[in-house]
C-alpha cells in the first residue's frame, strides 16, 4: 500500500469524464460477435473442448465489459485492486472445493479377493499377541 498522502489529486484518479460514444459502440459490436461465436461453437461437435472454449469466450466478453463499459481502464489503482481481489478469492474458493471433489477417488486399494475377506474359522491370526503392553 503506497503511502501517497490522499488529499492531493491522486494521479491515476478518475478524471471525471466518460468515454466516447464511438468506443462504446465498437465494444458493443465486439460483444455481439463474441456471443454469436460462442453460440456457433456450441453447435460444432467439439467433444471435450466445449467447456474451455465457452468459458474463455465468456471471460473475454466479461473483460470487455469490465475494461470499457465500467471504466476500469482509466480507473484508479484501487478499482484494479478490488477486481484482482475478487478474481483471486473466487479462484481460491473454486479450486480448493474442486481439489476435494477431484481427489476423492485418487487412490482406492482394490478390495481383497473374497476368501481373505470372509472370517477364517480356525486359525488364530499371528498378528495378535496375547495382549498389547
Amino acid at each position: 500500500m503506497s503511502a501517497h498522502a490522499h488529499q492531493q489529486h491522486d494521479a491515476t484518479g478518475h478524471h471525471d469524464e466518460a468515454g466516447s460514444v464511438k468506443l462504446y459502440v465498437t465494444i458493443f459490436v465486439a460483444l455481439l460477435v463474441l456471443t454469436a461465436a460462442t453460440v456457433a461453437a456450441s453447435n460444432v461437435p467439439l467433444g471435450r473442448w466445449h467447456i474451455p472454449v465457452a468459458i474463455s469466450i465468456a471471460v473475454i466478453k466479461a473483460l470487455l465489459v469490465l475494461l470499457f463499459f465500467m471504466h476500469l481502464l482509466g480507473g484508479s489503482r484501487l478499482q484494479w485492486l478490488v477486481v484482482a481481489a475478487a478474481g483471486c478469492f473466487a479462484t481460491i474458493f473454486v479450486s480448493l472445493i474442486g481439489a476435494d471433489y477431484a481427489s476423492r477417488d485418487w487412490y482406492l486399494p482394490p478390495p481383497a479377493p473374497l476368501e481373505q475377506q470372509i472370517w477364517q474359522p480356525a486359525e488364530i491370526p499371528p498378528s495378535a499377541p496375547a495382549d498389547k503392553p
Partner: protein
Amino acid sequence: MPSQFRFFPEQASTFASRIDLLYFVLLAITVVMSVLIFVMILFFMIRYRRGSKVIRGPQVGSNLRLELLWSIIPLVIMMGIFAWGADIYFDRSYPPAAALDVYVVGKQWMWKLQHPQGKREINELHVPRGYPVRLTMISQDVIHSFYVPAFRMKQDVLPGRYTTTWFEATKTGEFHLFCAEYCGTDHSRMKGRVIVMEPAEYQAWLQSSTGTFASRGEQVFNDFRCGSCHSPEAGNRAPLLTGAFGRPVALVGGQTITFDENYARESILHPQAKIVAGFGETAMPTFEGQLDEEQILALIDYLKSLSGQAASPSAAPSAGSSAP
C-alpha cells in the same frame, strides 16, 4: 461399562497408541510455549512496572532477525507435526486389503450393524481381537458419525454415499460407541457398545447366524428380476456382473473408474449417472425408493460374492445358484 472416573481414555486399538504419542508431543509443545509466554509476561510485569527504578535502555522498535526466528522455527516444527499426523491419517483412511467386513447403517438415533456371515445387531458390534475390521457405512436420513473413543476412530456417515474406515482392536472388553455428528433430538441417545472378544469366542458367537448376507443379496437380486437383463441369456442388454466387482470399468466418454461400492450404489439408484461403454442410452429403471439401504448393501455383498471364487465356506449351500 467401565464407569469409574478416568483422566485419559483407554487405548484399545492399534491407532490409539500412535495418536496418543502425537497428542503428547503436541501437549508438550503447548505447555512449553504457554509457560514460556506466561513467565516472560510475569517477569516483565514485575520488572518493568510503572515507577520501578530499573534501567530500561533504548526502546527497540523492531528486530527483523528475531521476528524471522520466531516465525520460521515454529513453522518448521509444525511441518514436522503435519507430516507425522498425515502419515497416521493416511493409514487410518485406507483399510488393509484383508479385513473383516462389517456393514453399518446409521438411522435417526440407532446403529444397525450387519456381518457378512449373516449376524445382525442394533447398537452393538462384536469384533475379534487383533483382526482388522473394515466398516462400510451409510446413513438412511441425516449425517451421523461413527465414533469409538477407545479406538481413536471417527468417521462421518453420509446419506447417499458410502464412507469406509477401519480399526484393529488390541484389547478385549466393552467400549463406548457414540454418534459424534449432531443428528436431531436423540443425538445423545444414539449410543452403543463395541464388544471385543477373543477370536475363538467370536467364531463361536458367529456360528449362531443363519444364512449369509450375500444370500440375502441374491434373494433381492431375484426378487427385483435383475437377472432379466444382467445375465448371459439376456444377450447384450446390460453389462454382466460376474467377476466385475473391484475391477476397472470403462465408461461412455472415456472415463475409467473402479467398480466399487459407491459406483454400484449410484448405478442402482441413478443408472444414467455413469453408463458403461458400449451400452448407449440405458433402459434400466431407477430403483430409487424401492430398495432400502440394507437391500442395496445386501446386493453389493452379493456382487462381491459373484466376483470371488467360491462364496464363503460357511455360506448357505446355494452358493453356485443358477443366476450368473
